[in-house]
């Protein structure tokens, strides 16, 4: 019976640890501390040198849990990334994720050479371990403070962090192999990179499409859709890894495909994945915290700090500024992207690979990686909202409104039922207006279900259910949440007026007196964008024509659908007024 007792105790301890992790999130929210850090601390406290005194040195288990958790996190990240977002920032984010990671790792390495007496290869491994960023941490922080990032900046950070993990993982594994088995030729490395990328890409796309196909065509019992998708994501990951491809790339792509194809049970899947990622993160961080050895950590505290500082203040900023050079980000935006290069799950996870394969001095990598992640979470994590406001990258917007209920309607997939409580003072009540594509279907009042005819109007305190196209459901929020209009809109992203892309230049010239050079009067605006740029425009691309600036507003398949018209600039305000406005802005921050 002894064996059974031991198992029960292990289960009890494990569950208690996860529970402690979950409850500690309350503390973290109260103090605004980065949650992941708190999970790590819980693990460390429970470990052998903390009050918990649990002896844990099962690197294999930690690595396995870490892999699955990471796969789920990336899958979830993919699910929430819209194709349009992905396409709009694929170049800047892609450059950051590849070239940027290389620069970061290379510039971090000299510190390790100097302070830890390492060879270049070993030092590069240190650099690779800490080279990838963690978006989950950034977005969680922004969200909990009710801040909204500028769309292009937010999207770049998001896509970068999803795509740079595979690169950092690849780099780490190559370096570990070189350290274990001797040098490799560049050909081999290139071949391996291509193999990893191609297999990952293929299996990701095939896997994603298969998941969508099964989901839409096989009727699973209610409630099994979400677990099916999550497990299938892990299968895609593991399959790709087993086939010597990049499982992390595959699972991210598969997630994106599933998230963007209209599929059944979209809402449930997202909710389930949310829970799964949370659990994954908690389990992973608590385990990694357990695995650490705080006393030994102290030995490497100083070099770790040095690596972290060089990474945050030199390597990452240089990587960002160089990588983003061709993409027209402002100085402040680049500064912000540099600062939010938060390290997280992947860093510690990668740091455990040397331990797993038994590399000499493996604990050095682990300890350095661990210290860097903690420092980054502490310093950068804590200051991200502040930086966002100071650099004016974020708009304050209490985005805490989430009472929307979405219900699938089996039998078709275009429409869904969206439910809202009608709060006093909601824009809908104030203005009594409903977009034409939404159809009021049910009203719930005093625990009674009424048809719109029976209800005769909508009152405060009712719950309403509307029929709406799935992709537009979110837009209904505006009518039921009392969101203040975003103040001081970013003039770069807006025009004074909007026109559609198929407008001819002559029509514009006639109304606004703009003169376009040459005889192009019958050309459409979207053709004009391509002609002037010599490439496909992106949302936010601006071209000047005399006094007027044309801003690509919505772009689809490389063509401008709507364009903003920025009319002549106002005359500059007198200097005393500008100073006054600046002061006022600073004070209201």
């Amino acid at each position: 019976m002894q064996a059974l007792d031991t198992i029960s105790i292990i289960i009890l301890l494990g569950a208690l640890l996860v529970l402690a992790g979950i409850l500690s999130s309350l503390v973290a929210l109260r103090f605004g501390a980065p949650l992941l850090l708190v999970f790590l601390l819980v693990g460390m406290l429970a470990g052998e040198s903390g009050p918990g005194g649990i002896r844990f040195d099962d690197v294999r288990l930690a690595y396995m849990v870490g892999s699955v958790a990471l796969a789920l996190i990336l899958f979830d990240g993919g699910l929430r990334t819209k194709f349009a977002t992905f396409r709009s920032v694929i170049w800047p984010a892609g450059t950051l994720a590849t070239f940027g990671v290389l620069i970061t790792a290379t510039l971090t390495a000299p510190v390790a050479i100097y302070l830890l007496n390492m060879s270049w290869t070993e030092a590069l491994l240190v650099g690779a371990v800490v080279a990838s960023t963690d978006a989950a941490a950034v977005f969680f922080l922004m969200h909990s403070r009710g801040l909204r990032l500028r769309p292009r900046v937010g999207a770049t950070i998001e896509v970068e962090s999803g795509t740079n993990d595979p690169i950092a993982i690849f780099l780490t594994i190559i370096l570990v192999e070189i350290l274990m088995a001797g040098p490799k030729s560049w050909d081999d490395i290139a071949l391996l990179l291509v193999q990893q990328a191609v297999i990952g890409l293929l299996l990701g796309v095939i896997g994603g499409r298969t998941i969508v196909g099964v989901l839409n065509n096989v009727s699973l019992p209610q409630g099994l859709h979400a677990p099916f998708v999550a497990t299938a994501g892990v299968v895609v990951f593991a399959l790709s890894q087993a086939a010597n491809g990049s499982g992390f790339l595959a699972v991210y792509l598969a997630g994106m495909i599933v998230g963007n194809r209209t599929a059944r049970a979209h809402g449930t899947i997202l909710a389930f994945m949310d829970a799964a990622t949370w659990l994954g993160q908690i389990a992973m961080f608590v385990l990694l915290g357990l695995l650490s050895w705080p006393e030994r950590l102290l030995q490497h505290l100083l070099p770790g700090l040095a690596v972290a500082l060089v990474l945050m203040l030199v390597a990452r900023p240089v990587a960002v500024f160089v990588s983003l050079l061709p993409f027209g980000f402002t100085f402040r935006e680049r500064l912000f992207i540099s600062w939010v290069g938060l390290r997280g799950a992947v860093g510690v996870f990668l740091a455990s690979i040397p331990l797993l394969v038994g590399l000499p001095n493996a604990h050095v990598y682990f300890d350095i990686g661990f210290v860097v992640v903690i420092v980054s979470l502490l310093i950068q994590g804590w200051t991200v909202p502040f930086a966002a406001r100071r650099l004016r990258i974020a708009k304050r917007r209490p985005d805490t409104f989430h009472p929307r209920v979405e219900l699938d309607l089996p039998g078709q997939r275009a429409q869904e039922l969206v439910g809202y409580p009608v709060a006093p003072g909601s824009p809908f009540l104030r203005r009594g207006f409903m977009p034409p594509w939404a159809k009021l279907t049910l009203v719930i009042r005093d625990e009674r279900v009424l048809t719109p005819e029976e209800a005769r109007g909508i009152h405060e305190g009712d719950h309403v259910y509307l029929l709406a196209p799935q992709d537009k459901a979110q837009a209904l929020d505006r009518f039921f949440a009392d969101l203040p209009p975003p103040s001081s809109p970013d003039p770069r992203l807006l025009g004074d007026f909007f026109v559609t892309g198929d407008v001819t230049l002559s029509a514009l010239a006639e109304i606004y007196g703009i003169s376009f050079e040459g005889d192009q009067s019958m050309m459409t605006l979207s053709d004009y964008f391509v002609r002037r740029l010599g490439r496909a425009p992106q949302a936010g691309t601006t071209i000047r024509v005399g006094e007027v600036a044309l801003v690509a507003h919505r772009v689809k398949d490389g063509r401008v659908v709507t364009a903003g018209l920025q009319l002549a600039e106002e005359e500059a305000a007198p200097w005393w007024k500008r100073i006054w406005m600046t002061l006022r802005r600073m004070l209201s921050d």
Partner: protein
Amino acid sequence: MPLTDIVAPNAIIPALKVNGKKQAIQELAARAAELSGQNERVIFEILLQREKLGSTGIGHGIAIPHGKLPKLERLFGLFARLERAVDFESLDGQPVDLVFLLLAPEGAGADHLKALAQVARLLRDPETANKLRESRDAEALYAVLTMTPPATA
């Protein structure tokens, strides 16, 4: 250019009752014709033509229909607050309740653009828009429109 040069005190409609975008434009064209002595039909057609290129609803419940009128002598502005907001096909999907009509003479060129930009930025300022929504009579609306210095964006 001060807005008083464009909008006359009698070119304010404090509570216009309309059921939709087209009717709103029709009513505004009628009133503009009355005040400027131009042909109502021509004004209406010109405004509709501009709407065909893309809605002049600029978001946040504001619309600024505009166009060029060959026989007009100077810039002409007309402001209306709608009693009930109507769908104006704005990009942000929000119904519109503040409408500023701006007509320009054929040769206005840069002045036309400046005036349009000025009106757009004035109305887009949330404070101004709120004040306009709270004001009930024509005098108060006129005061808000003409007294507020344009916000430096």
